[in-house]
């Protein structure tokens, strides 16, 4: 999505990204970014919480309007939970036994093959 924002922006269309993966978006380098520190999949706010979603969109619109320069990141004040322990779990290798890793390796090979055949057929 970072590449898309850059391409539109370079061609005269101002953009804002709403996202959860701060490092990935900033590594790409984008014009404007509203970062919400929620688990991936909740870029637009908390599920079933209209207030949270409306607040997230409003912040993104304000970033769109008022960013002074490229690479502006604004962090949403919303918290996923009071305890930040959830952040330790994403792709946490320390929780995987060698057997589990082998299982994941096989699954990944299958997924890759499926994606390739889908892509080749598109």
């Amino acid at each position: 999505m970072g590449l898309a924002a850059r391409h539109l922006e370079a061609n005269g269309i101002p953009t804002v990204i709403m996202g959860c993966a701060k490092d990935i978006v900033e590594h790409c380098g984008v014009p404007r970014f509203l970062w919400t520190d929620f688990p991936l999949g909740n870029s637009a706010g908390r599920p079933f919480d209209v207030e949270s979603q409306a607040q997230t969109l409003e912040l993104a619109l304000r970033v769109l309007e008022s960013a002074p320069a490229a690479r502006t990141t604004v962090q949403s004040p919303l918290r996923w939970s009071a305890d930040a322990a959830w952040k330790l779990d994403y792709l946490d290798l320390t929780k995987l036994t060698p057997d589990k890793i082998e299982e994941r390796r096989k699954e990944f090979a299958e997924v890759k093959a499926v994606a390739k055949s889908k892509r080749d057929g598109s």
Partner: protein
Amino acid sequence: MFAADHDLPIPYMARTREYYLALGYKPYRWAHFADAPFTPLGTPLSRARVALITTAAPFQPEAGDQGPRAPYNASAKFYQVYSAPVDSKPDLRISHVGYDRLHTVPEDINAYFPLTRLQEAVAAGRIGSLSPRFHGAPTNRSHRVTMETDLPELLRRCREDGADAAVLVPS
């Protein structure tokens, strides 16, 4: 009292790199630029036409489990830019991407596709209007295909719709 030491932005790139290495795969190389383009918003938002761009995928009945608890589903991916009318009540899913399956369940489309919230912002006069269509951007591992094929097509569609600005929401 300070926040916990681990209460930081999750280092997704580092975790993904280590994970792929442990599985025996070459790490993915994320797009990276030292600079970034910038175009100031030329029209007040209350008069602007805004495009919504998503990485979510239209539900495909033949493509397996795309429900909120589906495992990663590569057959639900899409490899061409798609567009659909914003008044069509789209059914979009994210089983084809690596969202946080441990800590969230994508049962509410509004958490990853803010179309309804955008429509409310239009009704409230905060935004002039929405583009007649929203657009889907493929999550293709090939940066070359993304940059040479998909992004020019996405730009073409945004221009065709007369978009003054775009809100991009990765899932």
